[in-house]
């Protein structure tokens, strides 16, 4: 077990490198046309001063960003057990097909007959996702999980509107362990949010849920397994309570990696589902996006999906704008197709059997890790004692904190020193000093054992030499960052322009 060293370039801002007159782009000759055309544009519409962009050669640009990349950490660098983010390996073959001209150089408004390949991929992925989730039709339009949630909420809105009940049905119910976007999406859709507590087993408190439902209930948003990594065993009861109250059930698919081929939200009674292709279906997260958050519904909600839907008439694939109660559009065009095609390639290579193995091993990995972490001094795994976890588990180091001052944040930072990305911390909020750990199926047993060793070492350090942990990280490109200064009104700096104004004043 060795400590790690991340590259530590002193890389200035791109604005501070280069020299006047340099550039990194060769302009195509315009002999064919007349450059004086610019003079046709009246003076008052023309830019007066050129933008203050850097003047750098291609050589400098490539070096700059290559160095920056070396100060970044992705799943190809090491273990990335960031809970609820499913940071699994991103197969290279998927990137290769996403780079084909047939993906890159197509325009969304091309005639359908020239986009049959794209439409076929979309249509088939739709079918496969239906099969995987037990739903009846998917829209691939949403660009991210949160965009999918919004779509779902808009569908719930439109559904109640059609039944003339929207004025009455104002409330979306979410458990207190829900992903933070759930209440945010509900509120973005104009709903009130009712939070229901979890019980000691880590599942929704059914009695509280019964109290929460009323004729005002529009729906429930739930992820299953939940953010504690625990399967909501009483899901059928929950489903009955909500449906009996006239509400719809929304499935947040962020944790779908745990149950592929084992159970399907459609069979659990959910009406609407979103999936995160950049989690469960292995598309790379790109430092924050692009993602894809397709939304699937049961038959009775099909007519509410965004337009266009992709259909097949037996001979050709086509875009269907004729969706009677459609909510319209939730983003421009049809989808992030470069993401869609990667997920398509993934399912094509792993198949049904592979998907099942993915869930089995991701769950096995999580439970293996949980059993070892729970033995480390200062850590425990609260809620649902003795229950198996699914793809992730939440450890608490509140014991460690009270005995050594070392907090979840400190543990997270110290992990970085060993070349392991930190778990998600302080989430879900119902666990004190939470570390939410999701190893995914991509972690080998050797990596898991290594992770355990590192956690043991950190615990030992916390008790014996806490300063080392408290002042972590030491081996990353930069040491602990002054986040207060970053948001402090006096030093807030959000652009080069602000920097020049605030700090370069003569």
């Amino acid at each position: 077990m060795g400590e790690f060293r991340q590259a530590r370039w002193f890389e200035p801002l791109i604005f501070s490198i280069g020299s006047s007159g340099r550039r990194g782009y060769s302009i195509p000759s315009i002999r064919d046309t007349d450059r004086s055309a610019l003079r046709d544009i009246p003076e008052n519409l023309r830019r007066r001063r050129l933008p203050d962009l850097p003047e750098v050669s291609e050589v400098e640009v490539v070096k700059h960003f290559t160095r920056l990349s070396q100060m970044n950490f992705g799943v190809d660098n090491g273990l990335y057990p960031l809970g609820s983010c499913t940071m699994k390996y991103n197969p290279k073959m998927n990137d290769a097909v996403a780079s084909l001209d047939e993906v890159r150089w197509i325009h969304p408004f091309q005639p359908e007959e020239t986009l049959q390949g794209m439409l076929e991929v979309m249509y088939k992925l739709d079918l496969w996702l239906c099969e995987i989730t037990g739903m009846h039709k998917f829209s691939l339009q949403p660009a991210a999980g949160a965009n999918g949630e919004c779509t779902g909420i808009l569908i719930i809105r439109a559904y109640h509107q059609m039944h003339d009940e929207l004025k009455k049905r104002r409330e979306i119910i979410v458990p207190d362990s829900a992903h933070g976007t759930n209440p945010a999406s509900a509120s973005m859709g104009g709903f009130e949010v009712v939070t229901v507590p979890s019980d000691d087993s880590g599942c929704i408190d059914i009695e509280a849920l019964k109290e929460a439902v009323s004729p005002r209930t529009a729906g429930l948003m739930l992820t299953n397994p939940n953010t504690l990594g625990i399967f909501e065993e009483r899901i059928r009861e929950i489903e009955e309570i909500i449906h009996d109250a006239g509400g719809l059930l929304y499935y947040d698919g962020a944790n779908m990696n745990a149950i592929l081929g084992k159970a399907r939200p459609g069979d659990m009674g959910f009406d609407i589902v979103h999936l995160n292709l950049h989690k469960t279906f292995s598309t790379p997260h790109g430092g924050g996006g692009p993602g894809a958050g397709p939304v699937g519904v049961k038959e009775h909600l099909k007519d509410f999906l965004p337009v266009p839907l992709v259909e097949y008439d037996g001979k050709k694939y086509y875009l269907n704008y004729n969706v009677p109660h459609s909510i319209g559009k939730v983003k421009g065009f049809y989808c992030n197709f470069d993401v869609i095609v990667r997920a398509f390639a993934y399912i094509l290579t792993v198949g049904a059997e592979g998907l099942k193995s993915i869930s089995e091993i991701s769950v096995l990995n999580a439970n293996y890790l949980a059993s070892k972490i729970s033995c480390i001094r200062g850590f425990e795994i609260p809620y649902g004692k003795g229950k198996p976890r699914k793809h992730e588990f939440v450890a608490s180091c509140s014991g460690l904190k009270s005995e050594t001052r070392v907090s979840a944040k400190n543990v997270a930072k110290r992990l970085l020193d060993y070349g392991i990305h930190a778990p998600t911390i302080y989430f879900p909020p119902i666990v004190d000093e939470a570390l939410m750990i999701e190893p995914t199926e991509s972690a080998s047993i050797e990596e898991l054992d290594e992770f355990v060793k590192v956690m043991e070492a950190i615990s030992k350090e916390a008790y014996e030499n806490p300063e080392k942990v408290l002042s972590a990280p030491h081996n990353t490109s930069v040491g602990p960052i002054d986040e207060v200064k970053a948001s402090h009104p006096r030093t807030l700096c959000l652009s080069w322009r602000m920097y020049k104004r605030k700090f370069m004043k003569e």
Partner: protein
Amino acid sequence: MKVERIISIGFVVNPIAGMGGRVGLKGTDGVVEEAIRLGARPVAPERAEFFLKDLKAYIVSGKIKLVTVPGLMGECEAERVGIDFNVLPLQRKDKTIAEDTKAAVKMLISGKYRVDLIVFVGGDGTARDVLDALSSDVDEAIVLGVPSGVKMYSGVFAVSPSEAAEVVKAFVDGEADVAEMEVVDVDEESFRKGRLEIHLYGYLKVPYLPLRIQGTKTPSPETIDERENQKAIARFVIENMKPDSTYILGPGTTVKAVTDLLGVKKTLLGVDLYWNGQLIPDVNEKIILETVKDWKDAWIIISPIGGQGIIFGRGNQQISPEVIKNVRKEHILILATKNKIRRLKGSLRVDTGDREVDNLLKGRIKVITDYREWRILKIE
């Protein structure tokens, strides 16, 4: 490894703050002589020392550089605690007035010192002086109050000197968040005459210990600011208020945020009645029972009091068992900020003194926790 970042803190004590309290004066502003005549003893220096003692480790280790004011305005206290500090080149005074606080703050924020954080010991009056002194620099300064006054309605105060020290430590470690908090003060004259007229004087940027949620799927790591939360709750309550309904309003800042937004002046500690834009302040059980005519349209708006989460029976006995019975459980609106909820550990309590009413209330109830947000809590 030692963290080498050094934070400079300007420390200002208003030595006479809080003197009026024990001798029954409501605030010392303008009546110091009388307070001293009545036998008042300074309390601020002692509180200042508590605060500094809790901070000592950070000062000794060099993480904090302390700049303070001559004499009782900080120097004496710091000396007694035995720590290193610098003193502003100001005249040492035996009797201090508001102008001295202002002068000190002005100097601390000026180019030469430009401290990262100003900590003052005092009350609402002192907070106002700090606000005045900052004037145009107010956006650039971060301020924290150590409570020592008689009146401390402003949001700039930590709960206690030791909590203030915790906040400062977190600030030094880069773990505190900063939010704008109100500086309010009660009109001195009317306050001494038993009337409560609270004026809002402005806002200061104040560090606080955030409730950390780093959600993977949380829109951003979200922190919950108490005042913002109260306003959000108030906005939601008002949206749902019905004309012609009578509202029985319990004490506390959370309920008060509702009336603030409605533009009527509620008593902070009393129970008030609100009906169609009018407020009857400080009512007792008898007045409630006499005034409310239509119980079908009567509502109780309360928030849990203290750390135990008691909603009835402490500090609001005016809302008697009979009143509660008349209003019915369905018409009770409970307001609680997320910070408060966190401390409650999932349940509320009642102790009305009437077993029957207590049982009536028990079970689960929807509590308003934010704009358009509810939470189901247990009443025990």
